[in-house]
């Protein structure tokens, strides 16, 4: 939906096919406990129609016009800053309706083939032919690792009404957010909860990123730490065996010790894979447990040019992944920006559209970049991944190139230019990073963090000027 909106505003003709009956995608069904993990803060000191508000609103899609921005906060009932699943669904429906996004719902993509320069998508409603195809099919196909007996247990997506787990022993395979979400919901119902997977649990409050179990679902972890009855095991699951109406689960820890335990229910919270259908047969390479398609910095298949991706699948374009911290491309607050950047990229590279690249005065560059670092939502949500890029070409003048993938900027080469991004190292506060390309050489400059996350003060101004002064003085006046 975000990509369609952005393409439409650029005047790019396209068709959107969806198997769903209406807008909302996976949020028409999940999460199972009916509340999102992404927040929308109602009171921030920033007007909701302003771009800076997006930093605090992780759930609204992006609009150019003020009237269609920040759809979500107005639809939330105020009882939580995490929207409920129905509120999220309503937000997407409202955005589609207000912005006039046209989706051919109930149109199932069945197969894909190449014909000359075009791709042809087969659907029950007929064939669609296009030189460029963008797949935004989510990471929504339940995945079960090949563990003996696991195929007979329900997956996260098959979770029953919570009261049916009353006074039962529940074994949850998997210790990611979905496993802990279920455990949190079952705390007042289950007699015993066991969560098991080979590697230790990480917590987002420790990683200072979205890597790890989110704070909302940490209660089972505390219960286990205080020996309240929840058990968390770092062990492989060797076998799940049905015994009468119950199960026996055999586990083994890295030291090789086996432990077998009984459970009334076993739930596979083992994640999802990307439903790419026949795309791998066309040569689309995938990787990892989620079978994400490998992508370039502009979300094009790394192995099949012309096939692009949008939505949560764009986490397959890892970017720099500095300090091992992934982008937020797996979530709305990250991939909505990827979609907008992709729309512009497609418009410029596939449809010959030249989008505006506004000229800047040399004197305005430093304050502009510091303002972007302080308030630019793209930089806050997509750290070390999306960057504000300023061209410092000595002949053409100083121009704002907009938001671009940082990996693209660093690797592409070209004339003098600067990119700024926010970065985190998983240990302290985020800090600004400056990448300066001068005479073909790239240099990285990490600025100091600020305890109040404000980067427009004299210290950052001085640091940035020290980096840019010589190149700015050498750049021409605006084109």
């Amino acid at each position, binding site marked *: 939906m975000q990509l369609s909106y952005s393409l439409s505003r650029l005047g790019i003709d396209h068709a959107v096919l969806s198997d769903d009956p209406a807008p909302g995608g996976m949020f028409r069904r999940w999460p199972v406990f009916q509340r999102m993990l992404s927040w929308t803060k109602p009171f921030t000191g920033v007007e909701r129609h302003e771009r800076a508000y997006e930093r605090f609103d992780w759930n609204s899609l992006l609009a150019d016009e003020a009237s269609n921005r920040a759809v979500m906060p107005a639809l939330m009932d105020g009882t939580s800053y995490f929207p409920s699943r129905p509120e999220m669904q309503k937000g997407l429906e409202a955005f589609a309706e207000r912005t006039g996004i046209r989706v051919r719902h109930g149109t199932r993509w069945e197969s894909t083939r190449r014909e000359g320069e075009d791709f042809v998508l087969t659907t029950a409603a007929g064939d669609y032919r296009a030189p460029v195809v963008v797949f935004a099919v989510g990471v929504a196909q339940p995945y079960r*690792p*090949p*563990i*003996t007996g696991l195929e007979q247990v329900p997956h996260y997506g098959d979770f029953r009404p919570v009261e049916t787990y009353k006074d039962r022993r529940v074994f949850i395979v998997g210790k990611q957010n979905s496993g802990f979400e279920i455990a949190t919901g079952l705390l007042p119902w289950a007699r015993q909860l066991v969560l098991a*997977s*080979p*590697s230790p649990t990480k917590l987002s409050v420790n990683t200072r990123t979205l890597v790890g179990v989110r704070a909302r679902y940490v209660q089972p972890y505390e219960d286990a730490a205080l020996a309240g009855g929840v058990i968390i095991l770092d062990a*492989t*699951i*060797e076998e799940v065996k049905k015994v009468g109406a119950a199960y026996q689960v055999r586990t*083994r*820890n*890295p*030291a*090789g010790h086996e432990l077998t335990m009984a459970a009334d229910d076993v739930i596979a919270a*083992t994640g999802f894979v990307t439903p790419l259908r026949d795309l791998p047969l066309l040569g689309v*390479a*995938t*990787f*990892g*447990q989620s079978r994400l398609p*490998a992508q*370039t910095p502009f979300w094009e298949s*790394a*192995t099949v040019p012309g096939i692009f991706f949008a939505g949560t699948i764009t986490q*397959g374009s*890892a970017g*720099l*992944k*500095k*300090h*091992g*911290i992934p982008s937020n491309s797996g979530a709305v607050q990250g991939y909505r920006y990827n979609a907008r950047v992709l729309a512009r990229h497609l418009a410029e590279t596939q449809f010959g559209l030249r989008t505006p690249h506004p000229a800047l005065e040399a004197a305005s560059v430093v304050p502009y970049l510091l303002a972007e670092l302080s308030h630019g939502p793209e930089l806050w949500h997509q750290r*070390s991944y999306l960057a504000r890029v300023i061209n410092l070409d000595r002949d053409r003048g100083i121009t704002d190139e907009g938001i671009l993938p940082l990996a693209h900027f*660093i*690797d592409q080469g070209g004339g003098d230019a600067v990119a700024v991004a926010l*970065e985190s*190292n*998983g*240990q302290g506060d985020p800090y600004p990073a400056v990448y300066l390309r001068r005479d073909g050489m*790239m*240099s*990285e400059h*990490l600025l100091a963090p600020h305890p109040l996350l404000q980067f427009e003060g004299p210290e950052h101004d001085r640091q940035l000027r020290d980096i840019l002064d010589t190149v700015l003085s050498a750049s021409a006046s605006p084109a």
Partner: protein
Amino acid sequence: MAVRDDLVNTIAAFSLFADLSGPQLEEVAHLFDESFFGQGERILRQGVSGSGFYVILEGTAGIRVDNVDRSVLKAGDYFGEISCLLGEVPVADIVAQAPLRCLVLPAAQLEGFLTAHPRIMYRLLQGEARKLKNTTKWLS
């Protein structure tokens, strides 16, 4: 758990992990992330901080210093350990010469991983000794 069976089988053949038991190999498969890089894509960037420790699962990569290609890495080889161990930026680009599949561990986790797996640390040390020997031979 038989999860990521193919991956476990692949790394079982690498000298770096040759001393590990089956459960330990599975632990490694879970601890490391998997990454894919298209041909020509850079994995490590000379002078850019925040990189990690990589083990090549499939494909080849070139070591490039100041835009000059120096050497080629293949499946079972690893890179990035020097900048991880020293806490410094990489001194070379690593560039995928063909579609490249890797395991990756963030730098901050390498010390804990190696101290928890002394046999891997020893194998890594052997690898570093070989690199030093080759460099010394080359210089002399």
